[in-house]
């Protein structure tokens, strides 16, 4: 199925612009697949139809955000409005495992779900080595999931969230989803790889990857949510990942965005944390012409822990924007956030870190740090900590730095016989290493170290 979305002419009159942005957004829903084409359980189909109908009407009431919207002040989506996105007509069968060889992680052998343009691709997936009492599957194969229809109805699209527009667009359009369910007291420490492949081509396709992760009480799970592309050209990935950490659950989430530099990617991660749960997100952002990550964590119970670390490496004319939210609700919560960006060329990095601490959330301990390394005089960085604290007995810190390479640091290495160029590369690597070293998958640490070396034109890594 291919539906053309006509590119709107951009008039100067404000209200017409708004109308055009609304028309454009609505037209994007025309690219969606048909639910009844797929073999869903009847109850699941019913749930999907209900949320799709609601989301579709929501999308019709919204429009593409513009820089006049506070949340999109630094990120101009206008280049997207020039695009004619189409529904994907490339079947997963045209992609082979060889195409994915460079993306496959050796540590997740037998635990890899591959989705092509949002659709599950069983031929490319490996599920032979999943932990017992843990289910990793897609929306049409829920047999192994206990009370599947009820679980889907309860948890899918059931979270609050700040970002509405692209979330509703995803909900109105997705026809498949990755489902990971970890039962009570199950420790599934070995990471699962959820690999989302877009087909990049001259025909720019739009896809709506969706993930639902449920970690029941006292369980543990680690997963890598990975966005890649095969082929050349542009595409639009509009993803939504919903995560539920029940009481005392422990979730380690690695979000890896390694899209083509021509891609558009708007991704939402929304997390609900119950009492004493622990959620860690390591977000690595490498690709995309325009990339936006909306990362929203809701601490619903007492004594919850949230760790949000991120690393953005961009160059050329890339734009990478992270808007995070940590919403406290109960006492004794903690959060620790370190976001770093390395910006070269004309690239533009945006960080907005919102933390809200209501009166009930006494004894909160929230730390946020955003550090930026600007390698080029043409690069741009916008950083904005946004702390909204009502409770009076809390510890909340934040910091933001923008710097260039320090000539004293380069000199230190030179004075040990290391040439200036290599010294600079080493320091760039060192800046990124704090985040890279914490990744739970060793091969990803190597891949990223090499990526940093490539970015800096260095042939060696340390």
């Amino acid at each position: 199925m291919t539906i053309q979305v006509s590119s709107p002419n951009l008039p100067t009159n404000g209200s017409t612009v708004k109308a055009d942005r609304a028309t454009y957004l609505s037209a994007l829903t025309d690219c969606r697949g048909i639910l009844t084409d797929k073999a869903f359980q009847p109850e699941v189909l019913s749930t999907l139809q209900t949320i799709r109908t609601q989301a579709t009407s929501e999308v019709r009431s919204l429009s593409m955000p513009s820089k006049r919207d506070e949340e999109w002040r630094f990120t101009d989506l206008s280049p997207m409005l020039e695009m004619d996105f189409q529904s994907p007509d490339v079947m997963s069968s045209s992609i082979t495992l060889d195409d994915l060889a460079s993306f496959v992680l050796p540590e997740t052998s037998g635990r890899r779900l591959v989705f092509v343009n949002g659709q599950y691709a069983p031929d490319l997936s490996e599920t032979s080595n999943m932990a017992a009492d843990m289910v990793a599957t897609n929306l049409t194969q829920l047999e192994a999931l206990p009370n599947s229809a009820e679980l889907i109805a309860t948890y899918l699209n059931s979270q609050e969230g700040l970002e509405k527009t692209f979330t509703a667009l995803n909900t109105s359009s997705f026809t498949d989803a990755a489902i990971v369910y970890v039962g009570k007291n199950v420790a599934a420490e070995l990471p699962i790889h959820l690999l989302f492949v877009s087909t990049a081509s001259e025909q720019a396709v739009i896809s709506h990857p969706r993930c639902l992760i449920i970690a029941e009480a006292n369980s543990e799970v680690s997963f890598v949510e990975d966005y890649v592309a095969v082929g050349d050209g542009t595409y639009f990935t509009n993803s939504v990942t919903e995560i539920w950490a029940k009481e005392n659950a422990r979730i380690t989430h690695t979000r890896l965005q390694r899209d083509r530099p021509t891609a558009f990617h708007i991704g939402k991660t929304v997390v609900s944390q119950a009492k004493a749960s622990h959620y860690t997100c390591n977000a690595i952002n490498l690709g995309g012409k325009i990339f936006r990550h909306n990362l929203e964590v809701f601490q619903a119970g007492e004594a919850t822990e949230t760790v949000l670390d991120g690393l953005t490496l961009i160059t050329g004319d890339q734009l990478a924007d992270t808007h995070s939210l940590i919403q406290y609700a109960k006492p004794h919560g903690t959060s620790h956030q370190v976001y770093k960006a390395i910006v070269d060329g004309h690239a533009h990095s945006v960080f907005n870190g919102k933390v809200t601490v209501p009166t009930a959330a006494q004894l909160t301990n929230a730390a946020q740090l955003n550090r930026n390394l600007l390698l080029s005089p043409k690069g741009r960085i916008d950083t904005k900590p946004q702390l909204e604290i009502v409770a009076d007995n809390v510890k909340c810190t934040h910091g933001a730095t923008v710097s260039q390479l320090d000539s004293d640091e380069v000199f230190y290495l030179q004075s040990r016989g290391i040439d200036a160029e290599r010294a600079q590369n080493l320091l760039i690597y060192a800046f990124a290493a704090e985040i890279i070293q914490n990744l739970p998958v060793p091969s990803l640490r190597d891949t990223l170290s090499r990526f940093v070396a490539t970015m800096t034109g260095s042939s060696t890594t340390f």
Partner: protein
Amino acid sequence: MIRENSDVVLSVKDLTADVEGVQILKGLNLTVNAGEIHAIMGPNGSGKSTCSKVLAGHPDYDVTGGSVEFQGNDLLQLEAEDRARSGVFLAFQYPLEIPGVSNLDFLRVSYNARQKHLGREELDAFDFDELVREKLDVVKMDSKFLTRSVNEGFSGGEKKRNEILQMALLEPTLAILDETDSGLDIDALKIVSNGVNQLATPDNAVVLITHYQRLLNYIVPDYVHVMEKGRIIRTGTKDLAFELEERGYDWVLQESAAGVAVS
């Protein structure tokens, strides 16, 4: 040790240098021969640290006049890394932390850069590991510091020991130690000094930059220079350091201003 007819390692003549347009060195003269240990003392802001950075080739410092010869060759022509490879070593007052880069890898890359320059064999990780473990003993350093990131989370004393470990590996012909004694307790000071003494040979030379005489109890200098306003205004023996400790700098400055003969 002062010996007759020993080779000239460093010859600085009428050196002037600016930092951000401000002249800091204003005609520095200094000759250092093989086998000698020199101490440069002086009040804050006299240009001691600038002198060390200029000699090591920091790009932020502009040499505006004069000459520096190292073993008969023009040192100022060389980039910082080439000075290091040629045998000039600067132990930093504040060694920098480099997270994410293991100390062992850093030491090996640095060592091999010097080896390559000398036309000697570069060592692989295995052989280098053996070498570095021998050298650890010079500064009584625990091998656990090798696997940590360069200087990251090291105490002041550990950082300074790591500097001397680098000196032990690179075997420089000229070692300039910039306030290596600052921030050291007495035990660390003894260990670091002992390390430097082990490394001093008749073929190399050491320049100590320090505020305090106490370092000179452990590393005994052949010459003590007093620096003021970017020049050396007096040169003496180790006894000059005791006198400075006793009487402060003012009398030297006054005598210098009054035109009393230098050295």
